[in-house]
């Protein structure tokens, strides 16, 4: 009898707590959700392997001109050298030798071409062939130090940026891409160069890239600061 009672009461209070978390107390609920996000991030980072790669069958169709374009500015951000000077990618922060690379210098570095998925947080995925330089190659050239636990990728699409954990940035499929489907990157897709990796959701892949800053701690990001998962890994 006592146990029956105990069980009924605990079952009721458990479901009650769950329901309370949904309606009555949004603040408590969001604390619980933040806790779960934190736990999930630890698990995701624990599972993460550089050997786990995205693969797209070589015969698979590419999205081509249907590959969605997006940016946060009112109009397509275009780098105008007459106004802003020559475009350069600055690599700085926790590095021994900061870099400042023109597009030609970037294109002269070891080149990777990969046909991979792009996973959007909305649920769709699209395929394209990206050409560029591995972020790990840039980290090696700049001599990222032991303090470099995170990388912030910032661009000239207003103040768009997203910071990443170092392991994901060093994944062999994480590129600074300047080519798409065998052509130079178009203005709708982040020209002159952008981050592209199948291992993070689309919003983590900063377009219109200008700065890569290695950092001892993370500094959020455009969508992460609005409540989307900071980790955003696939």
């Amino acid at each position, binding site marked *: 009898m006592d146990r029956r009672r105990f069980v009924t009461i605990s*079952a009721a209070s458990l479901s009650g707590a769950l329901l309370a978390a949904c309606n009555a107390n949004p603040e408590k609920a969001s604390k619980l959700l933040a806790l779960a996000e934190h736990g999930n991030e630890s698990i995701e980072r624990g*599972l993460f392997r550089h050997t786990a790669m995205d693969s797209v069958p070589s015969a698979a169709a590419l999205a081509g001109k249907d590959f*969605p374009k997006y940016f946060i500015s009112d109009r397509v951000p275009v780098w105008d050298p007459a106004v802003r000077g020559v475009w350069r990618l600055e690599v700085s922060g926790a590095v021994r030798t900061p870099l400042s690379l023109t597009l030609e210098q970037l294109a002269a570095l070891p080149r990777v071409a990969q046909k991979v998925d792009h*996973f*959007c*947080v*909305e*649920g769709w995925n699209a395929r394209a062939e990206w050409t560029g330089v591995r972020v790990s190659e840039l980290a090696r050239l700049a001599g990222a130090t032991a303090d470099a636990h995170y990388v912030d990728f910032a661009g000239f699409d207003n103040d768009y940026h997203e910071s990443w954990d170092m392991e994901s940035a060093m994944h062999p499929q994480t590129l600074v891409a300047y080519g798409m489907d065998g052509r130079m990157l178009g203005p709708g897709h982040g020209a002159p160069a952008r981050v592209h990796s199948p291992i993070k959701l689309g919003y983590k892949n900063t377009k219109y890239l200008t700065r890569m800053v290695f950092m001892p701690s993370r500094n959020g990001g455009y969508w992460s600061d609005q409540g*989307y998962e900071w980790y955003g890994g696939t």
Partner: protein
Amino acid sequence: MADLVRRNHWVVRVTHWVNVVAIIVMAGSGMRIFNAHPAFARPGERFPLNPWEGHAIPKWLTFGAWLGGARHWHFAMMWILVLNGLAYLVFLFLHGEWRDVVPRKGDARDAIEMLRFYLFLRRDHPIQGKHNALQKSAYFAMPVLGVIIVLSGLAIWKPVTLGFITVLFVNYKWARVVHFVAMVLLIVLALIHVFMVFAVDPYALRSIITGWYNRANSPEARNARPFYHLVAPRRSSAESETDA
């Protein structure tokens, strides 16, 4: 004649109700995630298998308010769903109660007999164990669907890191389709289940809350079809109360 038995162990009762909450939150937040892009086709492709491609699910059926919020709920509640589901399955296995839900030879025939009974093609309620054969197949299909949902969910949550799970469903796109279709099937089964509880055996509600069940009121004893002989003959229920 009173015939009170302990029907559902506390583990079954607790996991049942936690599961109900978890499934509602998972389905609601999942549908909110779906609405961010309510289509299965990749950009530039078509997906004729879904006649409602591009049409969002009504907002009042969804949970989590916005895409990011729904994702937080989905990825938090999934742990409760999985741990609770495992507790239920481990209990069924250790306690031998899997026999009440795993189909065995003769269940197909018994299910046809149940259908015939419900369709008035047969006069007497078929003899059954804890559950009738139709119930049994539904209670077996639910955890099977649950396993498919969890696996396809992992496949679309981590399509690169857990890519070896994603390939079980061909690729990310098809894993999404499987995840969604399995959700729809599970919800349909659950709705039929709730309908049948109220239309055939409301006395079972007691058994899934306190654990006790009066066999004298069972559908078999009442010869009950949906909405038929719903109320047990007065004498037996009065007696059962005094005996308890």
